[in-house]
């Protein structure tokens, strides 16, 4: 199955790329979109087949110079391939409608989406260092071109593209360094060879390799403090590309960490995984705090991606720690939770980014403070975003709840069995997961309540129009997947267990089709029964209230209470900023918001106020504190270096002459 479906997936996406390149504007959008969606569907089939145990590998010696290309799919790669494919199906369907306007139907964006998808299908299937790095770089370049697709219309796009280009290439450099060093020490560049040679390497060398690749992969996954590009690039990309990046591409960072850390390097020392756990925890908290105070809908979603990838890394780190301490069942459980969270996050983040794209498409703005009242004008998008927000909130009925529950179970159950290390690390980890889950609820209540309910806060929101059918179809597919994952995770868990076994071999961590049982631990949960119970409870309560309310006195229609003064205006509503203000105040020290208040008095008297200007901005503090100084120093060094090149030809000839002579002298001395 895999041997047919995987080449089919690649073939269809490449065909889509060709269609995007050569077809005239008329049929280009639909043809490329349908072919890309077909490629995504084939990728899902290939990934699912690989997860069911249909391992597949291929060697294409002539494809790359010197090394040749090696491809192989195992259950772990299959999982990431299937997730990528599923996201691509939704995004491609959606893209057919979304790219109709704004110059997105040009050749470059239409070609690059399938190329991006092809690169993302190749990354989890690569089985040698050179193939992997090539696919990785192709993925980065294709996504970079897509991020800057709308650079003509907005200035921020250019800045975002620059940040992304620099960060992704710095990431590539460290991954390249790490993997090249690994391959040199192992005398092989195929993953098989690396796997076999890893045990023979000195511990310090393996640690250095892990540190390097972890930095690179963590940056791709948007883990703080290497996340700075993510909240810039994801919002500025066209929305279907944002979905592909935020729901599929960031996963591959986690894939890299799991593949290299667990599979190729074979586990390693406890400090590796402590580092992963700490980075994940920090990212989860920082991401969700920033999301909670963000006023831009897509920026909020981007920071939520940082948070969710952080949670995934908490699971991955915990799994590694447990594996080092020999707790196999716990290790498998933590990794199951992490991988399930990747699947769940991909589902709801696709849905949310696509819905945010519909809002942008319908109103022309992403600013939550200017939205509102979309319930009446965009009912389908509102309902779909509502579903996504519920899923992202880690509450029962949402799919995020299932994976976060599993994660918490694995962290909590570690306490009695583990040594001092787990006793010290697990309580804060539990607190981090719990706190980020709580803040996520506030964040998504804000996004949904302020963005979609109440009254329109601007004329743009008032004139909103519903998204066209292909866009709704893309979102509906994503919503359906989310709901299925939420009420019946038992359907995917057996397949997931094989992916987990690649990295953390052991018995299936979670069993049971309807009620989930944890292997070797006391813990059961049934999402389906919880959903049914909640449904019955809510319907029952509403019916009861209705009966109780109508029994005694007749109903009377009354005007909305507006304090007796005229009708309420949209300016009296809660805005995203005001909703987040208490949180912002509580976490003042972390977020360091910049507020400034300008009171201009009248000329006649200092006591009479003419105008008041209030500005508040919550910047990315990490960017401010960590990156700005480096950037300023680099700029200053550049300025200083200008003195070397003052435009005089004589000087340049002189440089050439002295360098050449210096080289000759050096050679003469050394030889």
């Amino acid at each position: 199955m895999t041997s047919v479906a995987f080449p089919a997936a690649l073939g269809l996406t490449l065909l889509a790329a060709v269609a995007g390149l050569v077809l005239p504007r008329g049929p280009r959008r639909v043809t490329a979109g349908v072919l890309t969606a077909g490629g995504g569907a084939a990728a899902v089939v290939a990934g699912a087949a690989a997860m069911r145990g249909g391992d597949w590998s291929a060697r294409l010696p002539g494809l790359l110079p010197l090394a040749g290309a090696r491809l192989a799919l195992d259950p772990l790669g299959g999982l990431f391939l299937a997730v990528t494919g599923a996201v691509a199906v939704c995004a491609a369907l959606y893209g057919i409608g979304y790219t109709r306007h704004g110059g997105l139907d040009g050749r470059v964006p239409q070609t690059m989406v399938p190329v991006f998808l092809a690169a993302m299908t190749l990354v989890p299937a690569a089985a040698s260092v050179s193939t992997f790095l090539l696919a990785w770089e192709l993925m980065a370049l294709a996504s970079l071109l897509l991020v800057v697709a709308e650079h003509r219309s907005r200035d921020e796009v250019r800045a975002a593209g620059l940040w992304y280009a620099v960060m992704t290439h710095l990431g590539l450099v460290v991954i390249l360094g790490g993997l090249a060093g690994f391959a040199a020490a192992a005398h092989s560049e195929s993953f098989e060879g690396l796997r076999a040679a890893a045990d023979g390497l000195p511990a310090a060398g393996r640690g250095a390799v892990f540190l390097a690749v972890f930095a690179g992969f963590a940056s791709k996954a948007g883990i703080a403090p290497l996340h700075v590009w993510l909240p810039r690039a994801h919002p500025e990309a066209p929305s279907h590309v944002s979905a592909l990046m935020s729901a599929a591409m960031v996963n591959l960072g986690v894939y890299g960490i799991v593949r290299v850390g667990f599979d190729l390097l074979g586990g390693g020392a406890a400090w590796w995984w402590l580092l992963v756990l700490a980075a994940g925890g920090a990212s989860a908290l920082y991401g969700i705090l920033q999301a909670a105070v963000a006023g831009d809908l897509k920026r909020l979603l981007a920071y939520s991606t940082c948070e969710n990838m952080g949670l995934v890394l908490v699971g991955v780190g915990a799994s590694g720690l447990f594996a080092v301490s020999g707790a196999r069942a716990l290790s498998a459980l933590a990794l199951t939770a992490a991988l399930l969270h990747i699947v769940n996050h991909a589902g709801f983040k696709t849905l949310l980014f696509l819905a945010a794209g519909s809002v942008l498409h319908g109103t022309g703005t992403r600013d939550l403070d200017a939205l509102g009242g979309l319930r009446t004008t965009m009912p389908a998008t509102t309902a779909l975003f509502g579903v996504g927000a519920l899923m992202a909130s880690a509450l029962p009925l949402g799919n995020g709840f299932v994976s976060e529950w599993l994660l918490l179970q694995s962290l909590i159950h570690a306490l009695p069995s583990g040594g001092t290390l787990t006793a010290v690390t697990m309580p804060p980890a539990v607190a981090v997961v719990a706190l980020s889950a709580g803040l996520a609820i506030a964040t998504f209540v804000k996004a949904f309540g302020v963005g979609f309910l109440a009254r329109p806060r601007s004329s743009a929101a008032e004139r909103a129009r519903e998204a066209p059918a292909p866009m709704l179809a893309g979102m509906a597919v994503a919503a359906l997947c989310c709901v299925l994952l939420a009420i019946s995770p038992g359907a995917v868990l057996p397949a997931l267990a094989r992916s987990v076994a690649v990295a953390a071999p052991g018995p299936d961590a979670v069993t049971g089709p309807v009620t989930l049982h944890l292997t070797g631990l006391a813990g059961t949960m049934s999402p389906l029964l919880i959903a049914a119970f909640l449904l019955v409870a809510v319907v029952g309560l509403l019916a009861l209230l209705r009966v109780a309310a109508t029994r005694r006195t007749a109903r009377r229609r009354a005007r909305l209470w507006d304090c007796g003064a005229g009708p309420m205006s949209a300016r009296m509503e809660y805005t995203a900023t005001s909703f987040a203000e208490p949180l912002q105040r509580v976490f003042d020290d972390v977020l360091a918001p910049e507020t400034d208040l300008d009171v201009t008095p009248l000329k006649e008297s200092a006591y009479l106020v003419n105008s008041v200007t209030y500005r508040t901005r919550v910047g990315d503090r990490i960017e401010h504190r960590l990156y700005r100084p480096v950037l300023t120093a680099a700029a200053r060094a550049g300025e200083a270096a200008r003195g070397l090149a003052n435009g005089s030809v004589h000087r340049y000839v002189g440089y050439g002459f002295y360098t050449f002579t210096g080289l000759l002298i050096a050679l003469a001395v050394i030889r």
Partner: protein
Amino acid sequence: MRDLFRKIRKTGRVAQDAPRAPEPVLPERARDLGGSVQIRHVDAGSCNGCEVEIASAFGPVYDAERYGARQVASPRHADALLVTGPVTRNMEMALRRTYEAVPEPKVVIALGDCARNCGVFAEAYGVVGAVGDVVPVDLEIPGCPPEPEAIVAALRGLTGR
């Protein structure tokens, strides 16, 4: 915190002894309200004299709350409206809407001479009329301003306690 507790201990009880419960003034309403009346106060244009007395009636000395009367922050929560002052032009619509917002069954109390018959503000240019000209009044408390005892007595007549 310690000072506060010390002060509480030293001050002791300042509330006056409760006089005998008066006869209920609106017996059939009192039955509906069951001895607990939630009151929304509306200043329809008063000179604030009445407000001072209301504050005193609900203060520690007269403590109207022990008889079941309570002030609330929204007409939606209220059983009764306590209206002071003559109804001015600017407050007329607000008073009507507040009256509309109170759930049935409701009671309107006109407190002070201004509320009853415009008092010293009768025929002033900004005055629409007495409270009774704008919304139906069930209970009147005379005085300019009425003494806290009178206010408490009237409220007790309503709560029946």
